[in-house]
C-alpha cells in the first residue's frame, strides 16, 4: 500500500476502534485537528487518547463519543479554560463514562522516551509528593548505585501517533521545526506514525537538511497532504493560531445541544477537510497566513 494517501483513506485504514492514539505532541501547535475531525466523521469508538497537553481537540473527540480513556497531563482549552465535554464525561458520564490516567508533562515525555528506547521505565525526580504519583504509571525505585529514592515512570507505547508537520516526502520522511514538545519521542515510541503535512516535497528536499528530519520514514505508515490540517492550531511558517475559533468553541460547547450544533457545522456537516476549509471562508483563511517570512539563514552541509 502506498504511504501517500488521502486523509479519509489514511484514517480509515490505519485507525481502528479500541486503539491508543497519541496526538498533540508539540503541545499547542501542530495539533492534527483535521485528522481528529476525520476520526469523528468515521465514528471510531473506544479509543484511548494520549497526550501531554490537549488543547481543545480531546474535548471534541470526547463529546463525539469516540473515546473511553484519556492518558495525559492536561485536558481543556488553553486560552479559554475548562473543557466542557471533558467535564461532562468525567462528572456525569455524558455521552459515556471516561477513564482518566493522570500524568505531568515531564512524566508523559519520560514514558514515551522509555518506550522509544525500548526499556520498561525511566527514573526521575519529578512528582515526588504529588498525589497522582500513586497511580499505576508510577512506582518507587531505588538507584542501584547510590540507593537514592527515585520515581519510576512506566513506558508509554501508543498504538499510533498522529502528527502534523510542515513538509514530508511521499515515503513519510518529514521535516518539522519550531517547538517540538514530545513530537520525536511520540513518533519513536508509537507502534506506527500517521502524518498530515502542509506540503509534499521531493525526497531531495528532505536530504538537503537531515537535522530537520523528524524520524526516518520507515517508522511512518501513512502520510496525507492536508494544508491547514492543524487549524485552528498554528503551524510555524504556514498558518497563525485562530484564537477566535477556540473562544467560539468554548462558548458553544457549554451545553450539550450547543456542542452538537458546533459538531454538525464544522465536522459532520462538511465534506471532509476541503469542506471544512470552504466553510472557514477565503477571508478567514487569508487572515491566518503569516504576515511575512522569517527566514532562517541557510546552512552548508559541504564536505
Amino acid at each position: 500500500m502506498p504511504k501517500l494517501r488521502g486523509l479519509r483513506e489514511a484514517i480509515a485504514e490505519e485507525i481502528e476502534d479500541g486503539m491508543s492514539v497519541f496526538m498533540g505532541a508539540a503541545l499547542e501547535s501542530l495539533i492534527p485537528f483535521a485528522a481528529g475531525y476525520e476520526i469523528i466523521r468515521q465514528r471510531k469508538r473506544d479509543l484511548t487518547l494520549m497526550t501531554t497537553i490537549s488543547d481543545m481537540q480531546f474535548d471534541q473527540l470526547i463529546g463525539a463519543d469516540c473515546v473511553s480513556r484519556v492518558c495525559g497531563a492536561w485536558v481543556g482549552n488553553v486560552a479559554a479554560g475548562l473543557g466542557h465535554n471533558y467535564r461532562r464525561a468525567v462528572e456525569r458520564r455524558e455521552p459515556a463514562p471516561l477513564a482518566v490516567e493522570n500524568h505531568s508533562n515531564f512524566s508523559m515525555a519520560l514514558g514515551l522516551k522509555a518506550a522509544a528506547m525500548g526499556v520498561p521505565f525511566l527514573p526521575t525526580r519529578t512528582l515526588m509528593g504529588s498525589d497522582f504519583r500513586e497511580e499505576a504509571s508510577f512506582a518507587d525505585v531505588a538507584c542501584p548505585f547510590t540507593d537514592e529514592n527515585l520515581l519510576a515512570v512506566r513506558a508509554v507505547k501508543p498504538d499510533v501517533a498522529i502528527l502534523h508537520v510542515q513538509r514530508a516526502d511521499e515515503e513519510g520522511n518529514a521535516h518539522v521545526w519550531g517547538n517540538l514538545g514530545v513530537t520525536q519521542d511520540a513518533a519513536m515510541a508509537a507502534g506506527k506514525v500517521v502524518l498530515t503535512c502542509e506540503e509534499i516535497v521531493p525526497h531531495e528536499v528532505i536530504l538537503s537538511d537531515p537535522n530537520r528530519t523528524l524520524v526516518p520514514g520507515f517508522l511512518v505508515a501513512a502520510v496525507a497532504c492536508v494544508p491547514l490540517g492543524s487549524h485552528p492550531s498554528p503551524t510555524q511558517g504556514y498558518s497563525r493560531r485562530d484564537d477566535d475559533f477556540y473562544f467560539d468553541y468554548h462558548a458553544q460547547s457549554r451545553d450539550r445541544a450547543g456542542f452538537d450544533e458546533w459538531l454538525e457545522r464544522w465536522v459532520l456537516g462538511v465534506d471532509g477537510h476541503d469542506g471544512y476549509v470552504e466553510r472557514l471562508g477565503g477571508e478567514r483563511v487569508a487572515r491566518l497566513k503569516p504576515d511575512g517570512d522569517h527566514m532562517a539563514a541557510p546552512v552548508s552541509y559541504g564536505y
Partner: protein
Amino acid sequence: MEAVEASRPFRIATLSLRKPMDYTRRELMVIAAAREIRDGERVFVGMRLPLLGFAVAKELHAPNAIGIFESGVLRDWPALEPIFTMSDPPNVAGALFCCGLIEVMSLLQSGRVEMGFIGGAEVDCHGNLNTHWVGDDGRRLRLPGSGGAADIATLAGRCVIIMNHERRRFVPRVQYVTSPGYGDGAGWRERHGLPGGGPSRTISSLGIFSFDPVTREMQIESYHPGVTVQEIRDETDWPLKVAPDVTETPEPSRDEILAVRKYDPEGVWTS
C-alpha cells in the same frame, strides 16, 4: 545578517486612553511577578500574567534573564507579538533555542532553572496547589490537570504562585495535591525527596505572601494599595498569619506600568 532579524516591531500601546498612574490590580500582579525575576535567572515562565511579568522584567531590571517554555522554547527576549499560548508562532520566531519538552524539563531536573511560576484552582496554607478536581464526591468538578506545573513545583529552584484571591481558592488543605508546596509543613519536602526549593512567594489579587522559614506556613508579607489585612483574612479560609514586618505592596513606578502596557496594549490580560 538580515535573515535573522525580527520581521516586525512590537505594537506600542495607545496610552492616551488610560492615565499611566491609574493601574489595575492585574497590572500590579504582573509588576509583582516581574519583581520576582532577578537578572540572569532562567525562568519557567508559563502564560498570561507571568508571561507579561517576564517581558516587564526583561525591559527593566533583568535584561539577561532567559524565559523557558515547556513546549520546547527558550527566549532571551520577549515574544514578537501578544500571544495566547506558549506555542504561538511569535513566541517561536526569534527564539534562542527550540527543542523538545524532555530537554527543557532536563534543564529543570538537573538544577539549572532558578525559578518557575505556577498557579492553580486551590492553594493551601503550605503552598500546595490543586488543578485536578474540586468539590465533594456528590459533585466533583474536574479540572484540566497538571500540565507541567507539578514538574516545576517539584524541581525548580524556587516557585512563585500567582492566582486570584478568593475564599474558595485559599483553603486550609487542598483536596488533591497536584503541585506540591511544603506538604504539611517543615521538613516535608526533604522527607519526600523533592529536589526543588518550593514556593518562595504567593502573589494574589489582594497581596503578596511569604512562607515562614520555620513552619513553612503562608503569611501576609504585603497588602496591595487599597486593601486591608482584614479583607485578605476574610478572603482566606484559614487563620492567616501576618509577617512581623508587614507593609503595603510598593506602588508600581511609571516605568513599570508603561512596560506592562507595551506588552499588553489592549489590556487582554490586565484590564
